């Protein structure tokens, strides 16, 4: 026949599409409803009083449900960061950008977010930042309501203040 039929098959493409209905769960739902109103809500571990934000409902060290509602300010500290320079399909923004661990004032764990309005070479550990929100009318139940955290005019946090949150 033709040459093509004598070529060994080296690979095949088999597309897979699966749809999932994802439930955030009670704790995340509370957090997400809060952020839809511009509030950053954390929860406390009843055993050691540590504040978790966003909360997934369990204190990871004690295996007990976190409790209550702690409203946190949208100001915080960059404990550590990296500068992402390679693109990826999954990213919400284009590189180069600063991906940072943000420790909100009053919280005891950090979460990942972007630092904007800051040149990569100016990024530093201990930098004080504040959330820059997208327009209110576009808010949904998502951490993406915060477009980025931007540097604010406060002196850098003391290393000791955040060294346990690296």
């Amino acid at each position, binding site marked *: 026949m033709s040459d093509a039929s004598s070529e060994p098959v080296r*690979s095949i493409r088999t597309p*897979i599409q699966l749809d999932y209905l*994802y439930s955030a769960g009670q704790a995340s739902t509370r957090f997400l409803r809060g952020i839809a109103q511009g509030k950053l809500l954390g929860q406390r571990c009843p055993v050691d009083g540590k504040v978790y934000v966003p909360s997934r409902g369990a204190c990871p060290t004690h295996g007990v449900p976190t409790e209550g509602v702690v409203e946190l300010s949208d100001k915080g500290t960059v404990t550590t960061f*990296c500068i992402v320079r390679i693109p990826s399909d999954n*990213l919400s923004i284009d590189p180069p950008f600063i991906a940072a661990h943000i420790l909100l004032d009053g919280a005891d764990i950090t979460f990942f977010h972007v630092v904007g309005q800051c040149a990569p070479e100016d990024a530093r550990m201990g930098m004080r930042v504040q959330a820059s929100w997208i327009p209110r009318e576009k808010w949904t139940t998502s951490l993406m309501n915060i477009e980025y955290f931007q540097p604010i005019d406060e002196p850098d946090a003391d290393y000791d203040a955040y060294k346990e949150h*690296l």
Partner: protein
Amino acid sequence: MAERCAVIGIGQTKHDVKRTDVSMVGLVREAAERALADAELDWKDIDAVVLGKAPDMFEGVMMPELFLADALGGAGKPMLRVHTAGSVGGSTGIVAASLVQAGIHQRVLTVAFEKQSESNAMWALTIRMPFSVAVVAGAGGYFAPLIRAYIRRSGAPEDTGIRVALKDRRNALKNPYAHLQFPDISFEKIAESPMLWDPIRYLETCPSSDGACAMVLAGEKAAAGAPGPPAWVHATEMRSEPTAFAGRDQVNPRAGRDCAAALYRKAGISDPRRELDMAEVYVPFSWFEPMWMENLGFAPEGQGWKMVYEGATALDGDMPINPSGGVLSSNPIGASGLLRFAEAAMQVRGQAGEHQVEGARKALGHAYGGGSQYFSMWIVGSDRP
């Protein structure tokens, strides 16, 4: 109480970016057949099979032990599939060893693999979950901030990572199975390679590889009949901690420190730096070498980078680390941990060819995974414990 366990056969594939010459089946069999041949055994001599692999979503196969059952000679046998994130290769070896140590089986085949060319690992690692921000760009994006924290804490010179990468890449030239082999590698080439996630450069990063690793683990009776020198398992240990919690130290995780301490205790080792002849350690980004040197207790906290500077971790150093070229040179994710365990065993069997550490009699294999939260380690030796 426990039966002694030894490695009597080791096999691995030539790791490469795309092994288009084999399917997943062919890949695992290549490693398994080599391990069986090394042990001079046949498929029917194996009592049980333990398979390890990273997340199913990489290759898009759910529970691959099922479709691979007969390809791995598993029909009519017990078969398990371990999955503990990046440390999976190590955990797989430990589960296999347990089956022997418990006195349940005399010969266990353990295999770990990844066919990354048939997967989209970057996608699978960072699937966009609803309600979340997609900011973490792959594993590097997750670990780079931790490396920055290490640099700050330790005051390590900025080029420490480059030196590690140079050593591992030179070592890889002595390992015929390694994926990345750059004969002209140099400090400058690494330093000038593109910065991916500051401070990690392209040539300081692990590749994405197709590869598999297999070992035959045996009880004392089967080991006595084995053709080559056995690598006796002196100790195994695993520790896990949560991904994120208040006050968590992700740079020098306690789970790693606890795991190593418990491991040394079990193996009767009080001075690991002196009593171990070498170690194969999971270093996917160059900076993890100095970090793990501290976590493993080979160097005091904050001084792991000095071992790199002193050449202590080079092939001719006092604590050679990753003479195989390590994860930086070959990274079939599911297999990478088992490769560390296997390479350590090869060393104490005198099987490591050009990258053999002279006179190695006691070695550490180490794997970690997740957000630096899962640790699996073993110590193997030429002497029966």
